[in-house]
């Protein structure tokens, strides 16, 4: 069996690689199992069935069945808590274990993963604390990710200067370096230092990307820079980065809109119309496309194409109205609660855990509005909790049914025991074990006497004994004492027979003595066994009612416990659902509010156009 320390390191490594690289790391190096219960836990752990594995581990630990694997079991417990999404409990275990002497790389890796998990769950203080424990023993790729995470936490907390300072020291030349630059740029823009941001974002915006990810990042940087410059009142400078964004891509709509606004800011409405008209045929869900529907007539009005502008405003109002209605019906579907149950119903709940991630929303009108919510931590983590709670609810539901069965089973056993007990007691009373022991001892003593006195006749069989009696009877016949030759002859024959019989009895004496002693010994052993069984029966009869009482108490106390936790899970489920609904409907409501604002703006603009037209008409009259 490998040493404790190497096992600890091995397991920490294994726990944090679960499940992706588990096969690659562990198949060559199986852990030597010394307690079968520990092996049973591993059996479920390796199949990523964390819940049954956890239950078995906790049960075995309570029964002290893991004596040979105490340290590994503790570590495995921490890892599985993590996999089960029970990160606070997991962290306690790791913090305790990490206080001991573990390898630096394992320690740093553990803190890093904890920091990452806490960040994803919104525990920013804890995440920063964990990162502060890392002592430069991380592999390069994780070191970079840790630094990014650290900076991101600072950005999220609004500490832009600190984030900028942290990322400024970045020396890498990888993709991470580009992300770091982008994050610094965003942090600088948010803190109002547009010029400093512009230098960084411009560098990114002009890079020659070697993959799709970097191309996308380049678009993002150009877009961020363009809008930062627009907001800073530099429309001319904004045009160039916005024009660098690809025409087809996730950021193209916003870029086209921005280019138009840059031109409009410089009063070049003719040129502004070119990118805005390009947006006209694109997906109305995109806020840039929606805004362009107002921007186009705005530019047309500026170019004195009043009638065309009016037509475009009318089209926009109509389109916004239809879209707003669709949003309303989607909001009511989500508020009905059915939406989140639909994807739980379609999703098997056997793989609860940290690594679960919903990749696609169920098909339906909601999906097109909410797809980008899937990318946010809160929505994903909220879904995970919702899913885990559903699993807990089903688990409790099953136990609730089982516990009733167990209660019945126990009741039946208690009745059967009570029914059988008098019969058993009766037969026990009729079995006089003490009397049998006394008789055995009496036999022992008799046999000792026989041996001592060499009483061979005492061991004769019944027929031999009868024969002996007959012979001695004949001996005392009066006729044999007559002085006649026949009497003497018969007397000789009797002496001969008696002698032969005595000789046989004396010859067999030792053998018979041995056999009887052996039988007595066996009887003695059987009697000892009987006494032991009797003691056991007595003990069982004393303990069984206590055992039944203990089991009944447990069944009775578990039943309300299940009920109470189930109610709380139900409550948490509805709160979790409400939280998810509020995120989803909040997102939809924001889209609807934006449409409402655009509609109002369109109506005002239209009214203004009608006013101008009416005034012009009056003047011409």
């Amino acid at each position, binding site marked *: 069996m490998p040493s404790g320390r190497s096992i600890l390191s091995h397991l920490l490594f294994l726990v944090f690689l679960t499940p992706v690289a588990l096969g690659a790391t*562990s198949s060559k190096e199986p852990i030597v*199992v010394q307690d*079968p219960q520990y092996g049973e836990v591993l059996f479920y752990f*390796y*199949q990523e069935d964390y819940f049954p594995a956890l239950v078995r581990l906790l049960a075995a630990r309570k029964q002290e069945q893991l004596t040979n694997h105490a340290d590994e079991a503790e570590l495995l417990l921490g890892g599985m808590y993590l996999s089960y999404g*029970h*990160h606070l409990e997991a962290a306690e275990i790791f913090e305790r274990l990490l206080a001991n002497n573990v390898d630096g790389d394992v320690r740093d890796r553990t803190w890093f993963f904890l920091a990452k998990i806490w960040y994803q769950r919104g525990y920013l203080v804890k995440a920063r604390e964990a990162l502060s424990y890392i002592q430069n023993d991380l592999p390069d790729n994780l070191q970079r990710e840790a630094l990014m995470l650290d900076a991101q936490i600072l950005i999220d907390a609004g500490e832009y200067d600190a984030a900028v300072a942290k990322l400024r020291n970045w020396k890498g030349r990888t993709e991470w370096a580009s992300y770091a630059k982008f994050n610094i740029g965003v942090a600088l823009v948010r803190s109002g230092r547009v010029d400093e941001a512009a230098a960084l974002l411009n560098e990114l915006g002009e890079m020659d990307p070697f993959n799709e990810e970097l191309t996308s990042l380049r678009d993002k940087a150009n877009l961020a820079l363009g809008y930062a410059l627009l907001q800073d009142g530099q429309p001319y400078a904004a045009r160039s980065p916005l024009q660098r964004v690809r025409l087809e891509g996730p950021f193209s709509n916003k870029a086209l809109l921005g280019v138009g606004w840059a031109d409009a800011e410089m009063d070049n409405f003719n040129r502004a119309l070119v990118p805005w008209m390009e947006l006209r045929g694109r997906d109305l869900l995109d806020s840039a496309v929606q805004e362009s529907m107002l921007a186009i007539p705005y530019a047309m009005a500026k170019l004195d194409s009043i009638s065309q502008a009016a037509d475009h405003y009318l089209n926009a109002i109509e389109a916004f109205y239809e879209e707003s209605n669709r949003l309303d019906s989607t909001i009511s579907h989500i508020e009905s609660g059915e939406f989140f149950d639909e994807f739980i119903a379609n999703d098997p709940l056997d793989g609860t855990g940290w690594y679960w991630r919903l990749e696609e929303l169920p098909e339906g009108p909601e999906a097109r509005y909410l797809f980008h919510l899937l990318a946010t931590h809160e929505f994903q983590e909220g879904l995970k909790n919702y899913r885990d709670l559903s699993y807990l609810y089903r688990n409790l539901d099953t136990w609730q049914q089982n516990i009733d069965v167990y209660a019945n089973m126990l009741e039946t056993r208690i009745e059967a025991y009570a029914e059988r007990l008098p019969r058993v007691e009766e037969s026990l009373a009729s079995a006089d074990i003490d009397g049998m022991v006394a008789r055995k001892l009496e036999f022992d003593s008799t046999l000792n006497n026989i041996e001592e006195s060499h009483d061979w006749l005492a061991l004769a069989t019944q027929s031999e004994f009868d024969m002996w009696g007959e012979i001695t009877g004949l001996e005392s016949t009066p006729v044999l004492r007559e002085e006649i030759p026949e009497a003497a002859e018969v007397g000789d024959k009797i002496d001969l027979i008696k002698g032969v019989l005595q000789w046989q009895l004396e010859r067999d004496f030792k053998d018979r003595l041995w056999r009887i002693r052996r039988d007595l010994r066996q009887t003695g052993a059987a009697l000892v066994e009987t006494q032991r069984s009797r003691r056991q029966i007595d003990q069982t009869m004393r303990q069984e009612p206590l055992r039944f009482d203990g089991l009944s108490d447990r069944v009775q106390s578990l039943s309300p416990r299940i009920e109470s*936790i189930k109610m709380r899970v139900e409550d948490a489920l509805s709160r979790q659902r409400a939280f998810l609904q509020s*995120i989803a409907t909040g997102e939809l409501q924001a889209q609807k509010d934006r449409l409402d604002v655009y509609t109002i703006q369109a109506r005002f603009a239209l009214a203004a156009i009608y006013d101008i037209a009416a005034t012009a008409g009056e003047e011409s009259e």
Partner: protein
Amino acid sequence: MDAGAATADARMMEAREAESREQFRSLDQDVQSLKKEVLDLNRDLFLLEEELLFPANSQVAFFISMDVGEYFELDSVTIKIDGKEVANYLYTEREADALIRGGVHRVHMANLKTGDHELIAIFTGKGPHVRDYRRGATINFDKGIGAKYVELEITDRVKKQQPEFVIKEWE
């Protein structure tokens, strides 16, 4: 374009995000505590179930384990106790893999009287050169007063390049 309004919007969005994060964390803490309670409850129920169905004085558990497993790919195990078939377990690929990695499968639990019993285990699967393989192993074991664990271990006999089936007893 109104830069001031855009900044105000961004600040408002940040505040909303912070609020939603706080709300999430509060819910998450409740979920965490419920998870712990449900786990503890499951542990207690698991122990109760075991004690109820298999009291310690009659309990015998049969485990399957694998050491290395180069020469044998496990498909199924059949267990007979005192001539009576009590378990016939078909392994999925995932389960067999978990066994190879060091997992131990509790294939059967039984209530047996104290005294001598005969166990026959029949393993089927793919042997060397991916040929169908079927082998049995027998053991007579004594069931004492306490719970008993019997482990059926599949190991590799490297010299013969054959699998070996060993039965171990644990008290």
